[in-house]
């Protein structure tokens, strides 16, 4: 906890090194830290391992980094909405590792909560390229899923106070709370920063104890607006 947590996007992201493992919030566009991702693109950071639920859609979210060849590896739950990412994968230019969605979230949470991992029976029937470590507990078989942490987490919150307490909204929470617990450096973009005490302490979704840097962003229509192709036609 530094005496002021408020940074510009450039200041906040400057220390993100090539080759870093970066946890990125968001499920589709809601909760995706688009402004911080554009900063990574602008500053040229490369050889990244990104962890995000999905591969975003072309031109949006983490796809701007994937398209620019900055991503060596993507750890996700599905990439179906991004044909560019799938094509790069088939060309061998993007490594993709997929997990069941809730198990990916649990691996990240375990990292954040200082656990070594979790035991799960999901996907026990699968042969994957990842050799699974199996254990038997109370007569049942489980797969060990090791904890997953990032060097950095890029988070989008609806609102923050100056202490770094965060509030998420609607379906824009998704992976953000888990990821904000699980990185050495936690950078949060938000459209609104209010004074300490302005958020009811019972309404805080993630305490500022986890948050290192806050970036106030203007939410552009292109990155944060309604995507017409997912809307009903009038």
């Amino acid at each position, binding site marked *: 906890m530094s005496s002021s947590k408020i940074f510009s996007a450039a200041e906040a992201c400057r220390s993100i090194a090539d080759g870093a493992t970066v946890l990125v919030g968001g*499920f*589709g*566009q*809601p*909760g995706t830290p688009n402004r911080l991702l554009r900063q990574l693109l602008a500053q040229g950071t490369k050889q990244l391992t990104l962890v995000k*639920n*999905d591969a975003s859609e072309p031109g949006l979210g983490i796809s701007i980094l994937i398209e620019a060849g900055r991503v060596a590896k993507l750890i*996700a*739950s*599905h*990439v*179906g*909405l991004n044909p560019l990412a*799938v094509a790069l*994968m088939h060309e061998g230019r993007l490594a*993709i590792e*997929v*997990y*069941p*969605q*809730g*198990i990916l*979230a*649990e691996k990240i*949470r375990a990292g954040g909560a200082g656990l070594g991992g979790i035991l799960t*029976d*999901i*996907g026990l*029937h*699968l*042969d994957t390229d990842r050799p699974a470590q199996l254990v038997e507990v109370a007569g049942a078989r489980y797969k060990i899923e090791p904890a997953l942490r990032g060097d950095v987490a890029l988070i989008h919150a*609806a609102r923050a106070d100056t202490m770094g307490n965060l509030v*998420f*909204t*609607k*379906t*824009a*929470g*998704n*992976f*953000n*709370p*888990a990821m904000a617990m699980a990185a050495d450096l936690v950078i949060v973009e938000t459209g609104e920063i209010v004074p300490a005490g302005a958020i009811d302490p019972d309404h805080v*979704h993630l305490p500022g104890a986890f948050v290192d840097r806050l970036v106030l962003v203007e939410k552009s229509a292109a990155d*944060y*607006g*309604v*995507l017409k192709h*997912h*809307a*009903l*036609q*009038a």
Partner: protein
Amino acid sequence: MHYKHRIAWRAAREIKAGQIINLGIGIPTLIMDYLPDRQQVFVHSENGIWGMGPRAAAGREDPDLIDAGAAYATIVPGAAFFDTLTSFAIIRGGRIDLAFLGALQVAQNGDLANWIIPGQMTPGIGGGMELAQKSRKVIVLTTHVTKTGAPKIVKSCSLPLTAPACVAMIITDRAVIEVSDAGLCLKELAEGVSVADVVAATEAPLLVPEGELPRF
């Protein structure tokens, strides 16, 4: 009625008052239009909603409120929002009464394959594996055969499984089939479809009860 809507309409009749349901991508999302009583059925969406309503009307979209397929959504009174961790705790904790999922293949023992065609379609797993394995009841909604006419209801899945022995019922454009300990049991026929049509389009053996079958 388009066949997808007929499947969704028939599927909605399987929902009991008070149940928590999850609607997978594709045909299952259409069930929203046929819910028996919206006050008494709570729709869970794995991206963080309990109490999801219909799709948002044109011009009324909220960029922060989507369903698990990225379409803009709405909520009903009494809904709650939560993060991915809580959402999948609901699923893996066994609180989903009924999940409707799509399929690439279903086997006669209820094995489900719907997430990957190796070397061809690799969108990833998403939430389907956990829904298939942990929901109290899984109903598959699918076309009876593939676009090239190959049967999707098979003796044994050739594709990697989403979850083993998880499917309780299959509703297709041609029939309603129950998965029982004795095997697959033909329960209902779509209008204009004969028992022989269904048997011919199904690789797995079908138990066919005597007498006239109900139509849907």
